[in-house]
C-alpha cells in the first residue's frame, strides 16, 4: 500500500522514464501511437456511417424523383465544384506532405504545408460561400422556400430598392431568414410560373432585395454566372443531355415541378454537413499549426499530425463523392 501512496504522489516516477509526450497509462510510445491511430480509424468509420445516412437519403430521393435531380443539378455550377475538388485534393496532398515532413522532423516544411492546407480549406469555404449566397439570393433553396428567381431580375429589384435599408444585413446567413420570411405563396408561383417570375420579385423586393444587396461584389460574380444561366453553366455535357433548353426554361420548369426543391434540400444537407466538417478541420489544422510552430512534433512524436491528416483526408474523400453526385447528375 505504501507503493500506492508513492505512485499517487509522483505519477511519473515509474522505473522507466516516460517521454514527456507519453501519457501515463501507456507503456510505450508505439502503443500510444497505435491506439491513437486505431481510435481515429474507428472515428472515421463512424463518420462514414454518418455521411452514408445522407447518401442513402440521396439515393432514395433520387430514385423517387430522377427528373428533379437532373433539373436541380443544373442550378449548380460544376466549374465551381470542380475548382473546389481540385482545391481539396491539393490540400490533402499538402497535408500528406506535412505528415511526411513531421516524420522527418523537418519543422519549417511542416509549418509551410500546414499553412498551405489551411489556405486550401479557407479557399474551399470561400467558394462554398459564393455558391450558397448566390443560391439563397435566387431562392434556389429547400422545401417550401424554393422559388428560383433569376439573378438579374432580383438584381434589378435590388437597384430599385431603397438604399437606406441596405447596409444593415451583411452576410448570407442574414439573407436566409429574410428570403424565407416573405414566402407564403409558393403554390401560386408554381401554378403560374410565367406570371410568378414577373410578380414574385415585385412582391419580394422590399424584403429580399435589401438583404442580398450588400454582398454585391461577391454576389455580382454569382449573378454573372447565373446570368449565363443554368444552361450557360452547363455549357458542356449538360446541354447535350438537356437538349439545348432555352435559358429561362430551367427556372420556369423548376418552379412548375413540385419536387426540384428536394434536390436542393439534399444538396444543402450534404454540403452543409460537409462544410461543418471542413470548419472543424480548419480548427484542427490551426491547432496543429500552433503546435508545429511551437515545435512539438518531430520524428519521435508526430501522432497528432498523422491522425489529423487522416481526418482531413476523409473530409476530402467525402467531397470527392459529393461532387459527381450533386454537380454532375
Amino acid at each position: 500500500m505504501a507503493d500506492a501512496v508513492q505512485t499517487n504522489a509522483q505519477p511519473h516516477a515509474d522505473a522507466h522514464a516516460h517521454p514527456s509526450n507519453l501519457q501515463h497509462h501507456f507503456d510505450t510510445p508505439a502503443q500510444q501511437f497505435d491506439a491513437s491511430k486505431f481510435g481515429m480509424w474507428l472515428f472515421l468509420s463512424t463518420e462514414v456511417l454518418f455521411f452514408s445516412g445522407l447518401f442513402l437519403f440521396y439515393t432514395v430521393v433520387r430514385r423517387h424523383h430522377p427528373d428533379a435531380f437532373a433539373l436541380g443539378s443544373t442550378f449548380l455550377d460544376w466549374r465551381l465544384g470542380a475548382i473546389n475538388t481540385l482545391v481539396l485534393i491539393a490540400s490533402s496532398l499538402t497535408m500528406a506532405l506535412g505528415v511526411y515532413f513531421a516524420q522527418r522532423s523537418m519543422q519549417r516544411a511542416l509549418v509551410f504545408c500546414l499553412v498551405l492546407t489551411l489556405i486550401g480549406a479557407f479557399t474551399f469555404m470561400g467558394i462554398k460561400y459564393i455558391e450558397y449566397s448566390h443560391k439563397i439570393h435566387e431562392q434556389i433553396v429547400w422545401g417550401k422556400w424554393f422559388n428560383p428567381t433569376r439573378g438579374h431580375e432580383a438584381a434589378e429589384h435590388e437597384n430599385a430598392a431603397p438604399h437606406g435599408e441596405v447596409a444593415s444585413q451583411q452576410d448570407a446567413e442574414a439573407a436566409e431568414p429574410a428570403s424565407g420570411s416573405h414566402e407564403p405563396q409558393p403554390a401560386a408561383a408554381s401554378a403560374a410560373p410565367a406570371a410568378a417570375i414577373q410578380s414574385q420579385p415585385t412582391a419580394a423586393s422590399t424584403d429580399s432585395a435589401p438583404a442580398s444587396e450588400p454582398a454585391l461584389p461577391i454576389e455580382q460574380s454569382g449573378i454573372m454566372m447565373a446570368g449565363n444561366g443554368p444552361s450557360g453553366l452547363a455549357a458542356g455535357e449538360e446541354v447535350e443531355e438537356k437538349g439545348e433548353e432555352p435559358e429561362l426554361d430551367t427556372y420556369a420548369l423548376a418552379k412548375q415541378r413540385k419536387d426540384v426543391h428536394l434536390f436542393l434540400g439534399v444538396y444543402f444537407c450534404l454540403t452543409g454537413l460537409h462544410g461543418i466538417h471542413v470548419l472543424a478541420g480548419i480548427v484542427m489544422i490551426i491547432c496543429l499549426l500552433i503546435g508545429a510552430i511551437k515545435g512539438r512534433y518531430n520524428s519521435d512524436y508526430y501522432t497528432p499530425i498523422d491522425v489529423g491528416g487522416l481526418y482531413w483526408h476523409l473530409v476530402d474523400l467525402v467531397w470527392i463523392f459529393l461532387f459527381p453526385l450533386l454537380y454532375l447528375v
Partner: protein
Amino acid sequence: MSTLDASAAALPAADLPAGDNYLTCDRGFKSWAFTLDHKRIGVMYLTGILIFFMIGGLFALLVRTSLPVPGVAGQAKGPITAELYNKFFTLHGAIMVFIVIIPGIPAALGNFVLPLMLGAKDVAFPRINLMSFYFWCAGVVLALTSLVLGGVDTGWTFYTPYSTTTNTAVIPVVAGAFMLGFSSIFTGLNFIVTIHKLRPPEMGWFKMPLLLWAIYSTGIVQILATPVLGIILLLLIVERAVGIGIFDPALGGDPVLFQHFFWFYSHPAVYIMILPAMGVMSELLTVFSRRHIFGYSFIAYSSVAIAVFGFLVWGHHLFVSGQSNLLNTIFSAITFSVAVPSAIKVFNWLATLYKGSINLKTPMIYALGFIWIFGIGGLTGLFLGTLATDVHLHDTYFVVAHFHFVMAGTIFTFFGAVHYWWPKIMGKMYNEALGRWGAMLSMIGFNITFLAQFWMGSLGMPRRYFHYDPFFQPYHVASTIGAYIMGFGFLLTMICLVHSLFRGKRAAANPWGGVTLEWRTASPPPHYNFDRTPPVTDPYDFNLVRYNADTDAYDFIPAEERVAVPAGHH
C-alpha cells in the same frame, strides 16, 4: 447478515487500504469535474444514471397512475389530461432509453471495471472519456430544457410526420438524443481501442472476462449504428427548424424513411442495451455458483453474432408500414436467426449453474431473475417477429410488455452489477437483507405489471391509449398495482445503496471470490489501479481463491501454496 448491523464488524487493520484511494487522493469540485480517471468518470456516470433512473421511474408511475380508470373519451382523468399523459410516456421512454439504459452498464460500470479487468491504468483516451461524459450531461440538460418548455408528446421514437408537426418542444429533446448518441459513440470507441491496445500481452482474446467480449461487441454497434441515428435526428431538427420537406409528403418527401433510419439505429440499440447485461450475467453466474463458465467461446462468439445480426433486422418494426412482402419475409427470417445466439447464451448459463454451489446474494438474485425475464422477453420477441401474429399484436400492450421484459432485464442486471461491484467502487458493503428485499420486490412487481400487459395486449388493448374499453380495466389495475410494488422495490434498493455509503462496513478487496483482475486490487482501488501489474489467469478458475472466515472475504492463494489441481475440475 439479515439484520441492519452494517457498520458493526471491522476489518483487521492490516487489510485496510492505506487510506489513499481514487476517491480520497484528491479533493474538491475541480478534482472531479476535470478528472481523467476512468473510475471517477464511472462514478459520476453512475450517480447521474441512478438519479435519472428515479426520474424516469417516476414518469412510469405517473403513466400507470393515469390508467387504472378507463375514463370518458374527451375528458381528463382528474388532474391528468390526455396531453399530459402523452408527455408522461414520452419522457419515461426517452429518459429511460437514451439517458439511463444505453449508457447504464457500459458507461457507468464499464468505465469503472473495464480497465481494471485488463489490469490497465486507464482507458485508451481519458480525455475523450471525460468529453463523452460531458456530452451525456449536455444531452441531459437539453432533455430537461424540453421539460421546462412543456415536454414532448411524440413518444420516444419521434416518428414523423407527427414529430414534425406537433407544437411541443421536440427540438431540444431530439438534440439531446443526438448529444447522448455522440456520448455513446465515443464511449464505444474508447472501449474498443482500450481492449485492443491495452490488453496485457499474456491476456489473449479468449482469456478475457466475457464482460469484455460483450462490451467490445456493444462498441461495434455503438460506433456503426449510432451515427445513423445522429443523421436522422439532425434531419428531423432541420426539418422542424427550416422545413426542408424531406419527411413531408406534401412536398414530395417520405415520412416512412424516418422509420427506416430510426430503426436502423434503434434496433441495434436494443443490443447496445442488452449485450453488456449479458456480459455481466456471465460474471455474476460464475462467481455466485463457483463454477467455471460453460462454453466460453460460444458465449464470446454469440456476443459478436448478436452485434452483427442486430444490424439486419430493423425492418421488423415496419411490418405494417407498407413494406413489401418480400422484405417482410426476409426481415422476419433474420429476426428469428437472432434468437439463436441469444439462446446459446441462455443455455450456456444454465449449464454453468448445473451442480454449482449457488449462493443467493443480491447480485445472484438479480442474475437468476434475468434468466426468467430475458427468457420471456426473448421468446415473446419471436411472436412479434412472426409476420401473421405481428399484424394482430402490433402496437398493442403485448409489444410494450415484450420490450419491457427485455429492457428491464438490462435494468435488473444493471442493479445486479451495481451491487456486485459496489464494494469495489465505494469500498463499502451494502446491507444484504435490504438488497435482497429490493431485488425481489422490484422483480415481483415487474412481473405483475408486465404479465398483465402481455395478457391485455394479446386481447387487443392498443398501446399509448389514454381512454380505453372498460373491458380491459382489471388488467390495467393489476398492472398499476404491480408498478407500485416495483417502485417500492427500487426505492428499497436505492435506500440500500445510500445507506451503505454512510453505515456500510468496509469492503474487503475480494468479498465475492471473483478471480477477474479487478478483485486483485484494493477496494476502493488506488488512483493508478494496481500497485503492481496483476498476473493474468483464467478469469473463471475459482481454485485461485480461498475463503477467509476472519474477513468474510476471499484471498488469492499465493502461487507457491497452490496445490496442483486435478484435471477435469471444471
